[in-house]
């Protein structure tokens, strides 16, 4: 997400980097480009103007002109201003039980999907979520929520006999009490912010259920319209938070800046894929870093912690240490990586990778590897050395690949084993040094 904004800012500031000393003229030029970049990233006109003004003021105030590395300092100022604009600090949900969350938004912004994702997250945090279907208009919207609730093992409430949405909400609150559900998520119909009748309906629903959180679900690719939408929903319902969706696309996400700056409502979560796990807490400082191409390593680490089973990881580390690592273990690792979400969403968090698109080649490769290993017998997985020509042919046929690919996998695996053995021996230190050197070379993007 935000790759393009990053690119544009980078190129806008490139001129500055080469310059030994910053003159007012070349700063003005760069700031003009920053404004253009923000505008083409769908940041609202006024927000963009204010942002640029602020950065300019900061620059003058801090006497950037006399600093030794003006480029770095400007990047720092833009970064700080971005963080300020996006809202400082983390943005957690209210800690209340029962916790009532109302999800609202335009059509197709991703409310139903977000309801399921949020429910899954709350369940992980020890809540008993109940998803409530309040979209009585879109055909099959209730079915959609019900199916998602089932898939994620969440409670579900609906009443298909009525269109009285506030009544459905009130009944759901009661049902939640009876079922001892302590997180109630209300999925509402998509509505235009100017549709008076529907806005009134959701206001009444809100009045009846008294939600602890009212969250606007907004498409990350929204245009200038984002400001009007957010303002209207905010004044009608007093929003407490925002979920930004579809950020696994390449939308520049300027809408996030706009909405945040006109409503002051914190962005709480971001949707980054179609899987229920592709849902992240929002951290403004990280996002600002990411906008500037500094990556999002912290998110990645947390994601890994959430999905990697601690014990399993330790067992694996032990195996690696003893070079007693077979294809079965490899399969387990593959599954763990898969649980972290799509490869692209993982890659996007790495420094310097924000513009890189893995495409789905890597994902497909992973699926193939998995298929190959799964076509082996348990014995073969544990002792890959018994894989002779016949066995390899059978495996290739079983997994729908060519024998060459099976050979390749086995060869790669053998190399890995060899490396593990080296790590055990006296060569380990030397190798670690080599790896360090490699990391330093390919490393963090310098500003």
């Amino acid at each position: 997400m935000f790759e393009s904004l990053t690119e544009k800012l980078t190129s806008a500031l490139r001129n500055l980097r080469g310059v030994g000393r910053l003159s007012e003229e070349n700063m003005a030029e760069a700031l003009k480009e920053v404004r253009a970049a923000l505008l083409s990233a769908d940041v609202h006109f006024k927000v963009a103007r204010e942002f640029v003004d602020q950065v300019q003021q900061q620059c003058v105030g801090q006497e950037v002109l006399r600093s030794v590395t003006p480029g770095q300092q400007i990047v720092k100022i833009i970064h700080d201003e971005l963080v300020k604009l996006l809202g400082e600090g983390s943005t957690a949900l209210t800690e209340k039980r029962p916790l009532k969350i109302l999800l609202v938004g335009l059509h197709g912004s991703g409310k139903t999907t977000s309801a399921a994702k949020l429910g899954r997250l709350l369940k992980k945090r020890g809540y008993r979520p109940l998803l409530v279907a309040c979209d009585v208009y879109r055909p099959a919207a209730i079915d959609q929520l019900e199916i998602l609730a089932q898939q994620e093992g969440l409670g579900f409430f609906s009443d298909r006999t009525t269109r009285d949405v506030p009544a459905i909400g009130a009944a759901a609150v009661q049902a939640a009490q009876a079922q001892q559900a302590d997180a109630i998520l209300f999925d509402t119909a998509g509505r235009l912010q100017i549709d008076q009748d529907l806005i009134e309906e959701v206001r009444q629903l809100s009045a009846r259920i008294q939600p602890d959180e009212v969250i606007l679900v907004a498409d990350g690719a929204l245009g200038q319209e984002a400001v009007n939408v957010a303002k209207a929903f905010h004044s009608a319902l007093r929003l407490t938070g925002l979920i930004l969706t579809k950020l696994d696309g390449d939308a520049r996400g300027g809408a996030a800046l706009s909405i945040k700056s006109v409503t002051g409502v914190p962005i709480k979560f971001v949707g980054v894929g179609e899987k229920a796990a592709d849902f992240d807490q929002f951290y403004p400082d990280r996002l600002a870093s990411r906008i500037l191409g500094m990556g999002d390593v912290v998110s990645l680490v947390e994601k890994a912690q959430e999905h990697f089973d601690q014990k399993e990881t330790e067992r694996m580390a032990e195996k690696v240490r003893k070079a007693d690592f077979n294809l079965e273990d490899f399969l387990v690792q593959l599954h763990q990586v898969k649980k972290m979400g799509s490869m692209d969403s993982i890659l996007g968090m790495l420094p310097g990778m924000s513009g890189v698109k893995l495409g789905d080649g890597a994902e497909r490769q992973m699926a193939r590897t998995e298929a190959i290993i799964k076509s082996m017998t348990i014995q073969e997985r544990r002792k890959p050395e018994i894989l002779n020509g016949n066995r390899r042919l059978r495996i290739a046929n079983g997994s729908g690949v060519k024998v060459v690919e099976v050979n390749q996998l086995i060869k790669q695996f053998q190399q890995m084993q060899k490396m593990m053995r080296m790590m055990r021996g006296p060569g380990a230190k030397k190798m670690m040094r080599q790896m360090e050197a490699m990391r330093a070379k390919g490393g963090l993007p310098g500003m």
Partner: protein
Amino acid sequence: MLSLFKKFKEGLTKTARAIVEKTVGVFGARPIDATTLGSLEEALYGADFGVETTQEILEEIKTAHRKDPSMRGQQAAVIGAAVLRRVLAGAEGRLENGTGGTGSGPGSPGPGAGNPAVICLIGVNGSGKTTTAAKLGYDLKEDGRSVLLAACDTFRAAAVEQLRSWAQRLDLDLVASHTGADSAAVAFDAWQAAKSRHKDYLLIDTAGRLHTKRNLMDELAKIRRVLQKNDPTAPHHSWLVVDGSLGANSIEQARVFHQSFGLTGIIVTKLDGTSRGGALVGIYRQLKLPIYFIGFGEQPDDLQPFSVDNYVKAVFGLENGA
């Protein structure tokens, strides 16, 4: 035609009002000065026309203003409308008359004798493909054509049920399978059914996919391959359904879908909000893909053929002449 404009205008009224409101006096009788030019710039950016078109309009107005410092707001609106008309020249897509539509592009062959004309609706998640498929089916039926809907969104939970419920409501034929089924197989079966039931049109509703997901884009290619086994000229129309409230990213969406699937046109939805849907200008400017329909709401008859004239007039608040 008059009623069409009325509908169009009603849909975009808030648009027209928004631009006029924001630029109080700018498009009115007052002479233009630096302040009004500033608010004009803001209004144009606010319409999502994109940086290029906005600057083009501004330049022309400024040039005219230098020549005639006493220029009034109304004249500026006329200039803006003229620029927009120029940018959008040839942007109207039309389904041709007679049974079975033909491709819009020059030389694109129509369906073989007795074969249905195939229309594929594709786009990112939540752009409004399923609703558009239903509306389009309804429009074609009202127009006396026979239509078959194919529910090829086998991914999203309850997407099939959504289209089925539309089909029942509007009395349209539907071929569907279950969630998780192979979408290309559904397309294949639907084509066979459309052929044997002598349908004029086969409307294919596909699953939403972000243009950045290559495997999902490959799935689209498979649908195309399978259709072409039945009729090498299919699909005859591949339309991207774009949410009109999106910004510049919709151009990127269109570009990628066009590259990997080969689009023949665009449908812009959700223009009943305050969005000016200006992104359609950017898409047309970049890709020259005709815009066939625009959607104004959730009712079956809320889909209207795109008219440059109506759009430009509505956006600039010009009612008569110009």
